[in-house]
């Protein structure tokens, strides 16, 4: 066997290496075990109890500085199962007013790994949640009798107004999925559910702190570890200033009592939402405290779906409130000018098709058409645009251009409001019809109902209000949002930028003028507010769910608009029946703070009228 003696010497290198490592480890062990009694002390103190300190959650104010949402303390009874010794259960139950049976069940639930994946006998576990202040006081005095028990202070929400539940949202305990998605959460923590609580969770929640405590072998707290050097102070959540006017919100909600639908009011110059009503609503206080579960179930089982935010989640046919957008498109595309007239022979009659209309002068141009809400005018306009092959080639291509204008106005996609669960509504594209009718086998008349906001078109009340705001601004809008300011932070830029639809600004003057005429002498005369120039457009939307929906969109004052509003009342009939009075009352309340005596009968009427809903649906 050939042996390489030079290489054989390398065994000393390898052997030497391991000897050196062993030596280093020996020195380290010496240092840890004999030289440094810090570790011994730490171990003798039987390690640490880490107590979470919950930060105060950010408060919410309305645009006028009214406190809307604030915090109240609640107290959870925590135990470290390992340290619990047999205790007087009867005394314990009497102190905090629960039955021994409830206590037994709580212990079972706590130990159930499916309900409580983080269960361990060595770490703090939540036994009873949300003690009242009185129970907390009594238990605190007796706590020494219950080794292994301690009390953790928590933050609950409280509300100054029984309004805006859909905007504010509420808190719920984190789910397993939340914990897996974000390591910030621990079982039993609260997180925002729905509304601003959900969408601004990152700002509102703050940062949890921790107190590192030492305990002795019996679980008694011996003080802070290294004098609190390892403690982390909690950082309070940021306060929010909402753009809502909470009193206006309250007023609008009261007008909507007994009706299903939505009211959205926007300050056009800023995109700030002044009120966002979804009706029926509920008192946000229902979802606080120990009754939350029960109340939550009650709300989810209510056939009128109070938890569903109709204002931004409900997709409705916009009806005639859609017509101003049509006028804008036809003007922009040069299909009409302000003096183009179309005939109305009691409706739009073409190619064996008839879309009915009501009695008014004929033929007429755009502004009077808006004033009288003439179906025929917009059907003709639509037909002339979609079927103009000389300009667009095919109806499909024309339709795409038509659709793209609408998208630029905010239809068919989420506007990007800073609230969860916004619906995008529905705006068909050419492909949709080509698939349905066949390529090249449809034209304007096939889909004529979209010209008057019927048919496949669906829009959210928020999108309708946004159109009103865009017209009020004469050609631009800012993404509607409900938060005006975040403490110590700038607002996201996308909530401050102006967005411009693909319509030239000057066309808006004509459409606004038409809407002004509708209030002065057209379909929405009841929207007239004494001393105020108002522009509006009614909508009466046919739908497969029974009586027509009553819709209205409006803005005021005409020359310097400070509020744009959309109202949608399910099955309310003509736009003028519910939409116009509610919308104009909301505007009047906001602009004048009082309702003129001549209009108070209308207010009383709205407050006291209900719509009868027989069936379960949105």
């Amino acid at each position, binding site marked *: 066997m050939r042996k390489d003696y030079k290489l054989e010497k390398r065994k000393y290198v*390898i052997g030497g290496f*391991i000897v050196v490592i062993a030596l280093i480890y020996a020195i380290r062990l010496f240092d840890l075990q004999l030289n440094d009694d810090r570790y011994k002390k730490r171990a003798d103190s*039987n390690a640490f109890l880490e107590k979470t300190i919950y930060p105060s959650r950010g408060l919410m104010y309305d645009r006028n500085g009214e406190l809307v949402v604030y915090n109240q303390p609640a107290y959870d009874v925590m135990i470290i199962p390992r340290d619990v010794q047999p205790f007087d259960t009867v005394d314990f139950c009497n102190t905090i007013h629960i039955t021994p049976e409830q206590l037994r069940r709580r212990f079972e639930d706590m130990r159930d790994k499916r309900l409580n994946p983080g269960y361990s006998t060595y770490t703090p576990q939540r036994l009873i949640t949300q003690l009242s202040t009185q129970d907390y006081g009594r238990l605190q005095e007796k706590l020494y009798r219950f080794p292994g028990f301690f009390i953790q202070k928590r933050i609950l929400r409280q509300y100054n107004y029984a309004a805006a539940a859909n905007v504010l949202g509420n808190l719920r305990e984190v789910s397993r999925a939340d914990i897996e998605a974000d390591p910030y959460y621990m079982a039993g923590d609260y997180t925002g559910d729905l509304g601003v609580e959900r969408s601004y969770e990152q700002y509102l929640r703050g940062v949890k702190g921790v107190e590192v405590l030492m305990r002795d072998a019996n679980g008694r707290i011996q003080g802070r570890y290294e004098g609190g050097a390892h403690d982390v102070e909690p950082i309070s959540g940021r306060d929010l200033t909402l753009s809502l006017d909470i009193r206006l919100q309250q007023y609008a909600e009261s007008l909507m009592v007994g009706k299903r639908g939505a009211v959205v009011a926007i300050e056009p110059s800023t995109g700030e939402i002044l009120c966002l009503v979804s009706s029926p609503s509920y008192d946000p206080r229902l979802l606080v405290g120990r009754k939350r579960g029960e109340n939550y179930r009650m709300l989810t089982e209510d056939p009128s779906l109070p938890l569903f935010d109709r204002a931004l989640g409900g997709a409705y046919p916009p009806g005639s409130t859609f017509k101003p957008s049509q006028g804008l498109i036809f003007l922009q595309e040069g299909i009409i000018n302000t003096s183009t007239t179309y005939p109305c022979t009691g409706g739009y009659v073409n190619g064996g098709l008839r879309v009915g209309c009501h009695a008014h002068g004929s033929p007429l141009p755009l502004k009077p058409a808006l004033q009288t809400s003439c179906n025929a005018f917009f059907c003709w306009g639509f037909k002339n645009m979609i079927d103009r092959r000389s300009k667009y080639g095919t109806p499909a291509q024309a339709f795409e251009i038509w659709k793209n204008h609408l998208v630029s106005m905010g239809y068919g996609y989420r506007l990007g409001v800073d609230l969860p669960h916004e619906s995008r509504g529905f705006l068909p594209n050419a492909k949709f019809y080509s698939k349905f009718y066949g390529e090249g086998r449809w034209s304007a008349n096939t889909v004529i109902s979209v010209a008057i906001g019927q048919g496949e078109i669906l829009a959210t009340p928020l999108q309708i209000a946004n159109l009103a705001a865009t017209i009020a601004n004469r050609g631009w809008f800012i993404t509607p949002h409900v938060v005006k300011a975040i403490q110590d932070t700038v607002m996201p830029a996308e909530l401050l930028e102006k967005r411009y639809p693909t319509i030239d600004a000057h066309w808006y003057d004509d459409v606004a003028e038409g809407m002004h005429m509708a209030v002065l002498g057209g379909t929405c005369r009841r929207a007239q507010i004494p001393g105020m120039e108002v522009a509006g457009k009614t909508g009466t939307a046919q739908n497969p769910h029974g009586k027509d929906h009553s819709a209205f969109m409006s803005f005021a004052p005409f020359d310097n608009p400070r509020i744009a509003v959309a109202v949608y009342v399910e099955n309310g009939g003509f736009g003028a029946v519910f939409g116009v009075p509610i919308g104009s009352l909301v505007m009047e309340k906001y602009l004048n703070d009082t309702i003129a005596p001549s209009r108070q009968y209308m207010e009383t009427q709205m407050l006291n009228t209900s719509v009868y809903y027989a069936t379960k649906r949105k």
Partner: protein
Amino acid sequence: MQLSANNKSTSIFREIDWTTVIIYLLMILAGVASIYAASYDFDEASMLSFDEFSGKQVRWIGLGLVIAFVVLMTDARMFETYAYPVYIIMLVLLLVTPFIAPDIKGSRSWLVIGSMSLQPAEFAKVTTALALAKLFNGYNFVLNAKMSNYAKALAIIILPIVLILAQNETGSALVYMSLFFVLYREGMTGLILFAALMSVVIFVLTVKFVDPGFLGIATGEFAILLIVMLIVVDMTYMYDKRLTLPRNLVLWFSGVLLVMWIVGGPCGVDLPARACLLSALAIASIYIAVAAIGRHRNKLFVPVITAVLAVGLMFSVNVAFNQLQPHQQQRIRVVLGIEEDLRGAGYNVNQSKIAIGSGGFAGKGFLNGTQTKLKYVPEQHTDFIFCTIGEEEGFVGAMLVVGLYLALILRIISIAERQPRPFGRVYAYCVASYLIFHFCINIGMVIGLCPVIGIPLPFFSYGGSSLWGFTLLLFILLRIDATRKYYN
């Protein structure tokens, strides 16, 4: 060579290396006692019930001893004959494992057979060692003879690494890197190990000592530049004793720096320390490179390349460090003592240091460790078993374990060197390398000197795969060793 007949007589028990067997038995006994202690519950104490970890481990050990016996009864030539086929079968098994294994804590490496779970990665150590040994045993195989020999050896080592990485078992995969010791022993230039060691030193110094402590540059950077200078000067002197200029140059620059520090320092003069040191190194390197070309001494390029690589590494460490995943960065920072994070990445290590530190000289006594009993240390009975020993048996017990490992590894090296054939030698060095790696990393991690890489402490940690894998490794070695006399 001719193999003498009749090597499977009962004389095997006279021929095997009993020292190793005794160390092995001591280790597994101490191991099972520690597992019993680690999973001992004050409340529900039950003596070696088979549901407890220790009870299960006893069963693993029993079957492990059967395996050991079977190995000893096997013809030693079998291991050599079937080295390649078994290696390939194991690669296939590793390849399919992630597809058929259930997901356990993010790793797909466990094959469930009935009530047993086995980790093929542990057994791949055996097959890889045998395959490498077989390669080196080839006729007239000399590693340095041609590059293709390196390629073959590296292929044998790297294939299992890749497949085990696919199972998300980074720790188990890294173990195979230790086989570079084997390559070194068989002729690979020591510069590679030296470079690896230097890289670690440079990394630690750069990341840990970032404070501008000395002469206006980071202490770590200053230390590295000094070390690199010394190495360059030393290497140059080693390769060519006539080249004294670099040494003088470096000395001169350092001298100037020293004078400036003494004179200018107290007056608050800003010292161009980095520029001074770097330009000294640069001028020296250029001079050596010119000399290397002029004198046709290629070896002189080694110090130049060393300087360039070391300085390059130093400046790129921060960049590289930022490329790591945040949790890996944090682990490294915690290990280097830059960051103390008692709740996150540092929790395990902190708790295990507390447990070991609280053991003192003689320990708290068997079953009396409070830290381990109260489950403060996670993975108590597996990867962190050493801290139970440290807590309950104290410095004495911990040092005994270190001593046992040192004895075992040195014994295996000496067994390796007495092998008549490269097969036995290379195989033995493979076993030693695995043990060195596991020993260094596992204990280093428990006492807070290495990053937390989840690999077990062989013969001590709970788990059948690891125990059986290392038992196989060791007894195959003993079996091969027992036949050595037939070759002389």
